[in-house]
């Protein structure tokens, strides 16, 4: 390779990465800015980090979002996994294709429509029964309907390539159906359940639209707060928040990558060891 091509490639690489990461990096850098103007650098300072920590609204919104996301993660995983099981395991029940289509609909339906639909339902319900009060519950329910569909698809595809003879073997060895599920099926689909939970958590954590429709006047999730405060003018506190989120997400990705890498190395060593005993 000539020096010229190599420099060209290097430039292309640098440009590509710059395109992806310069906005995020500059945002992080500006979270340590002294000035209250986001775009003007006035020296290093932790002033906005302090402001952020004292910002009750922001912390309250973050706590609400977190609670909703956790609840959503568990309930959506339970419902979605049940639906995924039904779809994967009873391939001949009447109306299976309709059911299958209905499960996938929330994946493609515009969120605005789901938001309006949920809102109307909640308003009518509240008028008739006095429940639910709009806020935590309604946002969580809306998020669950949405993210359960994603979990269902993940579980369904995991079960599609699940070796049924493992369950038959367990049953053959004396395990009743529930024991088979607890000791064989569940441990083997656990990774799919975890990724389903994480996906549901993430979907809930960064949703603005559904929350916007279903939140009550008193409740505000973090994305809603960010969205509305940005419309009034970007405060450097948003940079602080974003920096925290990027750091947390970034560490999680690095950790997951490291764990997966270690598992792969272990498998390779095992395979090597197995090859030698053959």
């Amino acid at each position, binding site marked *: 390779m000539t020096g010229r091509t190599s420099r060209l490639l290097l430039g292309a690489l640098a440009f590509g990465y710059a395109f992806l990461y310069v906005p995020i990096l500059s945002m992080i850098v500006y979270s340590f800015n002294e000035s209250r103007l986001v775009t003007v650098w006035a020296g290093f300072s932790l002033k906005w980090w302090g402001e952020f920590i004292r910002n009750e609204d922001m912390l309250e919104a973050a706590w609400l979002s977190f609670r909703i996301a956790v609840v959503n993660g568990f309930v959506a995983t339970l419902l979605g996994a049940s639906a995924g099981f039904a779809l994967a395991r009873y391939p001949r029940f009447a109306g299976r294709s309709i059911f299958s289509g209905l499960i996938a609909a929330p994946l493609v339906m515009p969120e605005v429509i789901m938001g309006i639909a949920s809102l109307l339902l909640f308003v009518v319900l509240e008028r008739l029964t006095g429940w639910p009060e709009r806020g935590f519950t309604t946002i969580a329910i809306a998020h669950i309907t949405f993210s359960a569909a994603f979990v269902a698809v993940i579980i369904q595809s995991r079960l599609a390539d699940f*070796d049924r*003879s493992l369950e038959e*073997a367990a*049953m*053959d*060895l004396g395990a009743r159906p529930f024991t088979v599920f607890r000791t064989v099926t569940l441990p083997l689909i656990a990774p799919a359940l975890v990724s389903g939970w994480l996906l549901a958590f993430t979907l809930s954590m960064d949703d603005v639209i559904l929350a916007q429709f279903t939140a009550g006047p008193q409740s505000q999730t973090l994305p809603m707060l960010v969205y509305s405060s940005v419309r009034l003018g970007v405060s450097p506190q948003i940079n602080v928040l974003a920096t925290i989120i990027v750091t947390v997400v970034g560490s999680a990705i690095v950790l997951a990558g490291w764990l997966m890498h270690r598992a792969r190395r272990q498998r390779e060593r*095992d395979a090597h060891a197995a090859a030698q005993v053959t």
Partner: protein
Amino acid sequence: MTTPPLIRIERVVKRFGDVLAVAGVDLDIARGELFALLGGSGSGKTTLLRMLAGFDMPTEGRIVIDGADMAGVPPYARPVNMMFQSYALFPHMSVARNVAYGLEREGLPRSEITDRVDQALELVQLGAQANRRPHQLSGGQRQRVALARAIVKRPKVLLLDEPLAALDRKLRERTQLELVELQRRLGIAFVMVTHDQDEAMTMATRIAVMDHGRIVQVGTPAEIYEQPNSRFVADFIGLANIFEGEVTARADGVLRIACPALGGEIHAVTSTSAAGPVAIVIRPEKFALGKDAGGLPGTVRNVVYLGDESVFHVALKTGAEIQVTRMNADRRDAGAINRGDAVRVAWSADSVVVMPR
């Protein structure tokens, strides 16, 4: 049979929707047998095995194991265990936990489970691998874990679904004999499904040949080979030269059969009472092949050298083409027969199998 059979299969039929997988099977299997269900794909042999295990229920008929009717009895309550073709080892458990799984379901005390797991692993020579995971083992080792897991519960019947299909040839041949040895030592009845006739012949005490959901013939390996009851069995097991003929006379256990393909009238020593049009089977090794000896004249069309033996394709003067096998007993065969040689083939009346056409 004076003692009641261990397994009795009565008029069992299995339909999957419109597909008739098993079309009426009657079969008795005795204690201590190593029984092989032999057939091609779609012959119903695996479905029959799965009905013994309880994964599928018969549409009609009934299955009795050790005196108990198995109708409605789920797999986890049957006195049988199965070794799966894929082995179906639990990937998230160690070898020892895999073997212990069935015993844990019985709620046995910890110490007894440990002892029996150790014994079972010792039996299949995997004591040193107890703490490994299945994916850390070689194919042969996995096969032995699956075996240990299936026999540790001391079932009355061990079902084996293509037990050796995943092993390479050398290992398979060795394992066949090990399985037979183990079966004799344990005294458990083995019922094995296989599509490999050599495997069935090597291992089984009795074989049921299946085709299209029916049992075509049941017998010892020698009976199946030397006395096939149909063209299907003769053709399916080993090489067979099959001709058509017509019984013309019968006297003192000797049939006279008009068989144009074999040069006119031939004799067959047989107890069958077949009359009229018949099929005649002569196995390739039953022919004597020579250059100067007597017999039907023909020309060698092709020689397939297999090392231990050679297969000669001989075109007879009558127009029929036959296969003859001959052991290569002599390293430097002086009277070697080559392609294009004129030869004569002979056979004895004893080696002619006659069956209704």
